């Protein structure tokens, strides 16, 4: 044994320097096709010595001695290894590796062959992750796995994504648990996507129940790249550069049209039109603010990695840089990320293995206000009138004398914004693994996830109203004081995990696996903030806290701290009989400091079973090479309920004044009742699934149907006021999700043309079953010009749109008289709202549900084509059946711009039955929340289109290069949607119950990229 290791080390060490002595030749073929596999490669294991088969599939290679091992490989085929020994002619028939069922899937605290899994687990491989240049790791989940919905919270660089596994399952936080190399992490924005080996999504309760109180929203398990055993040292360089630009402008009024409508609106309101609009034709096109706002912006990424492994040590070093500017504001919404990673493991003794993973990330993100209708550049650019020019004659920024205060010149506002978030994060772990006996191992892992972040904010002093010939600039164009705010945030989370694993096969038929473990983890958060106003200088470089004349009046400070802890015991038993009958049971007990004293521990069981029918003797359908039925049931918890919700905080600031000088004297009192019974939200899920493989892996199909019920959902149920304090959170609500997930993959080749087609689709319906006693609907989604537009109510989906139903336009006064009373000033040309309760008055009781922001179905389609060195990849993704509330336009102001469709307004009987008259005052409140603003948000998007070319192996072998590929790629090339706004892909914009509301959404850019992959 020792000798063998020594030899292998020698081979590795000497590598290419070895003198060639033995000539080997042969032919590489595939089953049922003697014509040979051109381009298949042969490499001497542990070296760069290798060659590629020629057009007939034949090859020749020299190796130093008979101990050499040859590795034969071809894309889509399983690698085969042959020891040279006495052989001089080695003909080889490679077997297809297409059978997905043989892949090893990472599951909670272990791994399993896919064919033996009885839960619902989806996998995304590193090839899929790096196929399209993704900006954040979450993006890799989008459209790739059935049942995982991913949407951008914003198109601004570095912004977060909303990830929902199997729909929204609570009115609170529905985001999944992320585990990276066994470490639970708060968000995965720190990960360099290139470092990821695989992502596995645990969707059903049986798979995620081993994570107990944290598993209810599904679990995303991410494994980063390590070295491979006896892998020759490898250096990879991956880079791309691209240009981003907006893919759409909204169709708005031009200056002429704006003036026409302004004139009509004045007359309708009984006021004289503005003299400067007397001849609209003279005004022409005016300013196109969207053109002024958007810009092309660069994006680039560089990554260098080193991997290698002997039979005792494996390692990966990698370093990466990613930089992206925004299409709005350029560097003002720019994002940069530096990453470094060291993963290594070492077999110290035969029974002892040690290892560590260490990742460091430094990122910087500049922010502009986003997704609100008050101060975002987007809303301002879409609402500011087209009359106003971007700049005055003197070159300074202009401002609108028409548009109301909120609608500042967006370009000026961007220039005045200084908001930088930067963080340094270390995620690391070290483990020791001991083999106690054959099949029995013990692993102890300690990990740390520490983030040190800071935010620098500076609000300068500025005033654009210098031009005395104009009116004073509105408030948004003026800032009379300047302020600097600097905040420090520290998150420090550690975990210590101990796991005992036992695997054994009895009588070759009974395979048993047992896992037992404990986890202790602690989360700490500290923040400290300081501010300083009225700085004597107004330069962003002088924006520091000490820059003050009088610290007493100008400086302020604040801080906060919180912590939480979790202590858990868990176990799992797997039993497989003949690889045909699969059983698994898990149990976890989670003790959490977030739970009230009366419910300190939660207990989460799960069971699953599978039956591989195709392995039965009676199975004769040879076309169906694999068929498995699965079923599972389990319970999970959601512990994202706040750190201290169970207790009653005594608040200060409950003051009163005493004494002749009216001295404000502090008082302290509780404002909320406590709830010692507070506990996790419980999710109970049943899953049935089917895995089918046809023709030895050419076709793979997976289908799952589930019913997921979240009970004990946290909500503040109104308590009687007699209690004297606000109601505490209580475990009261219930939500049910039902869904169907299908995914299909087809792979084949015709000669040298290889292709694969894949698609997945997920249907999910969500219904609020209960919101506790009283069941008061939860009203959210404030749109300033319309009021609250979202409502979460029993019997309906979460945060559905709620408002009035329009019924055309009143054409004349008779129609108004004949209809229910709307308003004293309702006039012809105003919108007729339906009198739903038939009481003759249009009021709040006539509102109803008018749309659902959650799609009925989410899908993704991929197509891969390879021919010789060329590869082409198309990735399409979309949603169907969701609505968007278009809250972009400030109808609470008149002098704002409007969509071009406003020109179709009512101007007299019969002129329009959908676009109301214009009026300065909107006395009929046509802008109220109604189906008028609810639009179809379905879309189909060509997320990625990529064409690559790899240099042939024959050429590379001489250059001692393993892979050299160049590619061009387009992202968000085409979006098909009926939505009129700038981007239909809208994630959570505010709280958990603010869904699908467009209030100036920062659109995703269209990108054209070119890149290179080099490995040697």
């Amino acid at each position: 044994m020792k000798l063998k290791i020594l030899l292998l080390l020698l081979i590795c060490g000497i590598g290419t320097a070895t003198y060639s002595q033995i000539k080997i030749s042969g032919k590489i073929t595939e089953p049922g096709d003697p014509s040979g596999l051109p381009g298949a490669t042969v490499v001497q294991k542990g070296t760069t010595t290798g060659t590629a088969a020629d057009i007939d599939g034949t090859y020749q290679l020299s190796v130093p001695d008979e101990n050499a091992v040859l590795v034969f490989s071809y894309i889509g085929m399983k690698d085969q290894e042959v020891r040279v020994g006495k052989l001089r002619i080695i003909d080889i028939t490679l077997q297809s590796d297409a059978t997905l069922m043989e892949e090893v899937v990472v599951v909670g605290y272990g791994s399993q062959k896919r064919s033996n899994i009885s839960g619902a687990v989806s996998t995304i491989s590193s090839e899929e992750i790096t196929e399209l240049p993704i900006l954040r790791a979450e993006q890799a989940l989008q459209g790739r796995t059935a049942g995982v919905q991913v949407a951008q919270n914003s198109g601004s660089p570095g912004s977060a994504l909303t990830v929902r596994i199997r729909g929204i399952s609570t009115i609170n936080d529905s985001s999944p648990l992320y585990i990276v190399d066994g470490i639970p992490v708060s968000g995965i924005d720190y990960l360099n996507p290139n470092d990821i080996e695989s992502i596995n999504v645990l969707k059903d309760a049986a798979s995620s129940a081993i994570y107990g109180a944290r598993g209810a929203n599904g679990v995303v398990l991410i494994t980063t790249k390590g070295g491979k055993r006896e892998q020759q040292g490898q250096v990879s360089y991956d880079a791309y550069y691209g240009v981003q630009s907006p893919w759409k402008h909204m169709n708005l009024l031009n200056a002429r049209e704006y003036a026409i409508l302004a004139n009509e609106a004045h007359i309708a309101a009984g006021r004289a039109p503005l003299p400067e609009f007397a001849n609209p034709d003279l005004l022409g096109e005016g300013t196109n603010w969207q053109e002024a706002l958007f810009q092309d912006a660069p994006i680039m990424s560089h990554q260098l990695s080193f991997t290698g492994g002997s039979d005792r040590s494996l390692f990966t070093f990698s370093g990466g840089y990613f930089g992206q500017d925004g299409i709005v504001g350029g560097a003002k919404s720019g994002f940069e990320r530096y990453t470094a990673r060291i993963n290594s493991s070492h077999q110290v003794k035969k029974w002892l293995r040690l290892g560590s993973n260490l990742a460091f990330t430094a990122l910087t993100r500049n922010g502009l206000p986003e997704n609100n209708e008050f101060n975002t550049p987007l809303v301002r650019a879409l609402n500011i009138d087209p009359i106003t020019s971007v700049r005055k004659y003197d070159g300074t920024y202009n401002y609108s004398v028409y548009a109301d205060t909120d609608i500042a010149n967006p370009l000026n506002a961007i220039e005045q914004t200084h908001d930088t978030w930067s963080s340094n994060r270390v995620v690391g772990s070290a483990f020791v693994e001991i083999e106690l006996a054959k099949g029995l191992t013990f692993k102890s892992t300690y990990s740390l996830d520490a983030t040190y972040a800071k935010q620098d904010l500076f609000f300068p002093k500025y005033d654009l109203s210098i031009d005395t010939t104009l009116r004073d600039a509105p408030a948004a164009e003026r800032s009379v004081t300047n302020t600097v705010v600097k905040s420090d945030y520290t998150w420090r989370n550690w975990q210590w995990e101990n796991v005992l694993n036992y695997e054994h096969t009895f009588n070759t038929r009974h395979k048993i696996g047992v896992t037992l473990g404990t986890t202790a983890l602690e989360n700490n958060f500290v923040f400290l903030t300081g501010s300083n106003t009225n700085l004597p200088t107004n330069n962003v470089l002088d924006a520091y806290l000490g820059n003050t004349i009088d610290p007493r009046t100008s400086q302020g400070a604040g801080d906060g701290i919180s912590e939480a802890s979790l202590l858990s015991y868990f176990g799992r038993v797997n039993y497989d009989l003949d690889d045909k009958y699969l059983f698994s049971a898990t149990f976890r007990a989670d003790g959490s400091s977030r739970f009230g004293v009366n419910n300190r521990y939660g207990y989460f069981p799960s069971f699953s079973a599978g039956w591989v029918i195709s392995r039965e003797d009676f199975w004769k359908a040879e076309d169906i090479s694999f068929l498995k039925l699965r079923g599972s049931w389990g319970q999970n918890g959601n512990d994202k309920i706040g750190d201290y919700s169970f207790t009653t905080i005594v608040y200060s600031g409950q003051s009163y004044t005493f004494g002749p000088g009216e001295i404000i004297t502090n008082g302290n009192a509780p404002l909320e009742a406590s709830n010692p019974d507070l506990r996790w939200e419980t999710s109970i899920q049943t899953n049935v699934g089917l895995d089918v493989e046809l023709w030895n892996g050419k076709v793979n199909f997976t289908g799952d149907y589930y019913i997921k019920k979240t009970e004990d959902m946290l909500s503040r149920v109104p308590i009687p006021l007699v209690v004297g304090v606000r109601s505490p959170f209580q475990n009261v609500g219930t939500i049910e999700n039902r869904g169907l997930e299908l995914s299909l993959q087809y792979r084949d080749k015709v000669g040298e043309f290889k292709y694969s087609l894949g698609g997945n689709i997920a249907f999910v319906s969500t219904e609020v079953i209960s919101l506790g006693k009283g069941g008061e609907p939860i009203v959210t989604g404030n749109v300033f010009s319309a009021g609250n537009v979202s409502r979460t109510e029993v019997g309906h989906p979460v945060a559905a749109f709620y408002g009035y139903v329009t019924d055309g336009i009143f054409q004349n006064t008779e129609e108004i008289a004949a209809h229910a009373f709307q308003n004293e000033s309702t006039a012809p040309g105003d919108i007729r709202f339906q009198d739903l309760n038939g009481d003759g008055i249009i009021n709040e009781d006539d509102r109803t549900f008018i749309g659902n922001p959650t799609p009925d179905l989410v899908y993704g389609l991929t197509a891969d084509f390879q021919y010789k060195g060329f590869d082409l990849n198309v990735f399409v993704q979309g949603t169907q059946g969701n609505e968007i509330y278009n809250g972009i336009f400030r109808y609470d102001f008149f002098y704002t711009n409007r969509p071009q469709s406003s020109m179709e307004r009512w101007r007299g009987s019969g002129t329009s039955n959908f676009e109301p008259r214009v009026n300065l005052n909107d006395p009929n409140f046509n802008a109220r929340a109604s189906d008028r603003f609810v639009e179809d948000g379905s879309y189909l998007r060509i997320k990625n289109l990529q064409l690559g070319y790899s240099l042939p192996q024959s050429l590379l072998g001489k250059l001692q290069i393993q892979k050299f590929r160049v590619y061009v790629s387009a992202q968000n090339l085409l979006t098909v949607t009926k939505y009129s706004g700038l981007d239909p892909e809208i994630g959570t914009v505010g709280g958990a119950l603010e869904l699908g509301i467009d209030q100036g959404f920062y659109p995703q850019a269209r990108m054209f990229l070119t890149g290179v992959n080099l490995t040697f």
Partner: protein
Amino acid sequence: MKRKNIITIGKSAFVVLLFLSLAACEKDFLERNPIIGSTLDNYYKTESDAVAAINATYATLQFEMTPAGHFRWFWGDIMSDDAVKGGSGDNDQPQLAALENFQGPTNTEYLEAEWAADYEGIYRANVVLEKVPAIEMNEQLKARILGEAHFIRAWFFYNLVTIFGGVPLADHVLAPSEYNMPKASAEEVWALVEADLRAAAASLPVRSGYPASQLGRITKGAAQALLVKTLLWKQNWAEAKTIAEEIINSGEYTLVPEYKDIFTTAGENNSESLFEIQYMSESGGNWGYNSNNEGTFANVFQRARGQFEGYGFNIPTQDFVDEFFKEGFEDPRLSSTVFREGDQMGDRGLFTKEAVGGVNVFDFYPKKFFNNKAEEASFGDPNPNGGTNDRVIRYSDVLLMHAEASYHAGNEGAARQSLNLVRDRVKILEVTATGPALLDAIYHERRVELGLEGHRFFDLVRSGRAVAALGGLGYVDNIHRVLPIPQSQIQATNGALVQNPGY
């Protein structure tokens, strides 16, 4: 022993040790309370905790508006014959208009806010009464704090019982199982009010017993005065008279020489002030929840609109103004109570109808919550930062209560003496009437002396005169002597609360 076995044992022992060490620290590991700030469990340990707790109880006295708060003048004046709602028109707070005509809906935000504020104050008083006794501290201070808590709890229950009648008797911090508390009878509520006030009177210092820095704290005199009011409701004339005389004889209070000085900023906490809710203009408070606001909205609500920058509520009626002329001359207090056209509205200008603006202009505007522009907040929004204290109980009220109690107790001489003390201050003829005419004179005096201070509706109900005075507005005696229990609270308790009869 073989080496391999030793290794195996060693490895196993290591594993067992790891598991054990984890389990050992379990309990402490999972106990996590907020690190900054206090919780109900770790607070109320020191003297300063006790002081902060009672201060927070005082804070609820200031609560106005929604979601928890009240204006005494909403009920006391607007619902009486002294004032109408006002505002910018019928659509301005229509719920108030409906209430003033006794056609009120059974749920308005104002009823709810009244209910909520009362119980929030009661809760905080209960916290003090439950937590402070166990604190090791100066016993004298502890007694005072408990006395203050008893008074404030009594004050809020007094509001509840006079506005709603019988209500849930939350005389302790409620456990979740008690949330759906049914109503107690009005008698039971009155009994608690009485007991609390007696306890407060017994332990609170007299006004002069407080250091100047504590001005604004509840005194023995305040507790006694509210007790007198309570006893008048209970028609316990003899004891009301006795306790009123204890206040009079305490020497703590004298009438302010000039009536017009009472309601000025300089007149805050004056020599005739027994119970005054403190407000200030400079707290920088804002619209929204009351807790961070030390100012009052009463100033802006009661100022005329237009040039005077108010909302024009609580508009005095002609009937009210006429009362000042009942004795054949203009009572001098009218000009301190009501603005009439042509009057100077402080530094805000002359009251003309033009200056008030085009719509909904009234002949009279209330004066007792008027503040000058110069007295407005120098920063923040002046609207929620009115500085005028709410004079809840004045010495003249005590004298008139004494007169009323003495009359009913059969001592007309004492009644006339107290009544005339109030009249002497404004230098009008002393009353010499006897019998029912004397009682009428006392009632007249209350309406004039205490006009627009939030007393009228309750005085009418208490003395059985409401039908006569308010019948024309729709008042029906066995219904409208109390307001409806907020419908939302009946729902919130699953019907454990029962609506008042007639609503």
